[in-house]
């Protein structure tokens, strides 16, 4: 499999980045949900600390993905009606935006709560804002609302891929998988 994207499919770098983010998002959404439901205590602190570390990892990967994508255009979309093309473009852009907005709002929230972020206990990140309980509360609401939007967009993204695979049968899914397309 080529490292760079070709006209037919995504290269290995784009694929590894895509599927790493998928795996991390599953962990991340699970940790976020668990932390949200836990009572105040050490478990919550630990779960949130891990959630923050994975979030910062996703932020880093999102930046690498975007840079890679800028210098290495994705394969063109298969033929499809214009409205589907518009929705697909919009959804991809929104997913990218949320890959940045989710960790950034979480980081802001941590700073506002005066619970600074450490990346897996290895390095402390600088605070983005001064402690502010009101701001922290607003950011919490925003973070949660965006998480729900992210889940919907991921759902659309997966449904779209499945539609191409099983209804259109245009082999679109193979472009993001390491196996040879049929």
């Amino acid at each position, binding site marked *: 499999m080529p490292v760079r994207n070709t006209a037919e499919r995504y290269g290995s770098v784009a694929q590894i980045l895509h599927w790493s983010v998928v795996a991390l998002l599953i962990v991340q959404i699970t940790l976020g949900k668990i932390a949200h439901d836990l009572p*105040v*205590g*050490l478990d919550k*602190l*630990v779960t*949130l*600390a891990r959630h*923050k570390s994975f979030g910062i990892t996703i932020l880093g990967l999102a930046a690498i993905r975007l840079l890679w994508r800028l210098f290495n255009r994705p394969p063109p979309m298969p033929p499809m009606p214009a409205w589907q093309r518009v929705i697909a473009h919009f959804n991809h852009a929104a997913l990218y935006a949320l890959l940045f907005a989710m960790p950034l709002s979480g980081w802001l929230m941590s700073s506002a*709560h*005066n*619970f*600074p*972020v*450490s990346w*897996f*206990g*290895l390095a*402390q*990140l600088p605070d983005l804002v001064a*402690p*502010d*309980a009101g701001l*922290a509360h607003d950011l919490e609401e925003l973070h949660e609302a965006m998480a729900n939007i992210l889940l919907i967009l991921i759902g659309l993204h997966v449904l779209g891929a499945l539609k191409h695979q099983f209804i259109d049968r245009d082999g679109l899914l193979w472009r993001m998988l390491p196996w040879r397309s049929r």
Partner: protein
Amino acid sequence: MALPLIAQSFVAAVACLAAAPAASDVWQGDQNAGSLQFVATQAGAKFTGCFRKFTVRFDFDPAGPPSGSLEVMVDLESADTADAERDGILNSAEFFWTDRHPQARFQASQFRREGERWRADGELSLRGIAQPVAVLFTLAGPSRQLGMKGTATLRRLDFGVGQGEWSTTEWIGNEVEVRFDLALIPADARP
């Protein structure tokens, strides 16, 4: 004999400067005199909190022999980490246990110079446990005020701060740094 004359007036000037400050060597201050902060570690990240209510009484003459006393009383309920949930936990029996031990008290009567700084070896009583703690500080003045700025590092578990699950040092650092930056005023001065 110009030189000895200059030398004499110099000595007189220094003596005058040394004598100029307040008649009393007792200095005092509270939360209005400056800040008393603590830096603790949660999940590998340091954060800063402060005490909103405390008093300092410092009987000391920086120009005299290194004897005197330093007493700091801290109202533990005034701990403020900018997060109400965490402040609540700090007040609970698992941390400061403010219901039973509303105040922490630091008392020192031994002072010595360490380079540019002073070192006060004393005892901190916190959560019903007294342990030796050293405070390092610099002094500015004295003039109408005595600037006092420094740090002390202590281990929270020496005082039982963080019981049960909170005694983990993996997620909550044992070391806590206390920082203060104060402008003390003579104890006999009217506010």
